[in-house]
């Protein structure tokens, strides 16, 4: 006996299963939120290295300001000064002459932060004629 099969015609639209997609999308979102890391903004402080040889001395120029940087801090014109005082003294010099050559004489044991702090003060005061001399 032949049985006739009737085709089922459904009027329903095919349903897209949203749940797994939303699960994945939320997983991705949580991953990105957790792993996002804000970057610091960097600056660069330029200077030149006039003498790499510690035994040699920088050429003597008439308009030169020497700042010594050692393990404990800054020495300006033979006297130890604090960072604030160094900034004030440099500001008074920069008021009269911005073309003064600033030579930063660093001792080997001085922390690098003192050099960066001095360079930063000089850049603030627009003293751009900077040289680093390693002792």
């Amino acid at each position, binding site marked *: 006996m032949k049985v006739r099969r009737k085709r089922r015609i459904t009027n329903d639209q095919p349903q897209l299963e949203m749940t797994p997609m939303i699960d994945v*999308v939320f997983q991705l979102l949580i991953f990105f939120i957790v792993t996002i890391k*804000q970057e*610091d903004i960097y600056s*660069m402080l*330029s200077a030149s*290295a006039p003498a790499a*040889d510690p035994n040699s001395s920088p050429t003597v120029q008439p308009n030169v300001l020497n700042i010594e940087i050692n393990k404990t801090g800054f020495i300006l014109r033979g006297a130890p000064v604090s960072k604030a005082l160094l900034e004030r003294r440099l500001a008074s010099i920069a008021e009269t002459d911005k073309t003064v050559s600033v030579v930063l004489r660093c001792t080997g044991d001085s922390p690098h932060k003192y050099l960066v702090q001095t360079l930063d003060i000089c850049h603030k005061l627009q003293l751009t004629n900077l040289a680093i001399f390693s002792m």
Partner: protein
Amino acid sequence: MGKVRKVRSAGCDLNMTPMIDVVFQLIIFFVVTMKMTDNVYEDIVLEDGRHGAIVKEMPPQTLIIEVGRRLPFAGGYRISINNAVVSESMLRDILVRRVNKYRNTNFPVLIRADNRVPHREVRRVMSVCTEAGVWKLSFMAIFDHTGKKKGG
């Protein structure tokens, strides 16, 4: 006459389309702004320097030399480029090759040194640079702490 309350048996239908739109927008934003891990020595703590030129897009010729402290058990200091430790002779070779490649010594050299490192370690790098003919050096500092932790 009393009003007859309509009681709907069907559940509240939440329209998912706007939510999915927003979520996709967020994902696209994160994918686009995501920065893959840089090859930098993460343990370097930089000093603040708010008055230098802001480092935005560095030219491709820029050479960043890192001077950092080793882990406490390893001791000492390390010089590296892209987080790969280099000796002074290797650094000299790299610099000389760059000088020969660009046919000048004006390419930017940025020293990214830890603020606690003694100057003699930075001087080693400076000496190698000057030997290769690179006199103009820049020191990296932090302009603004926008990152989560304070440091470089």
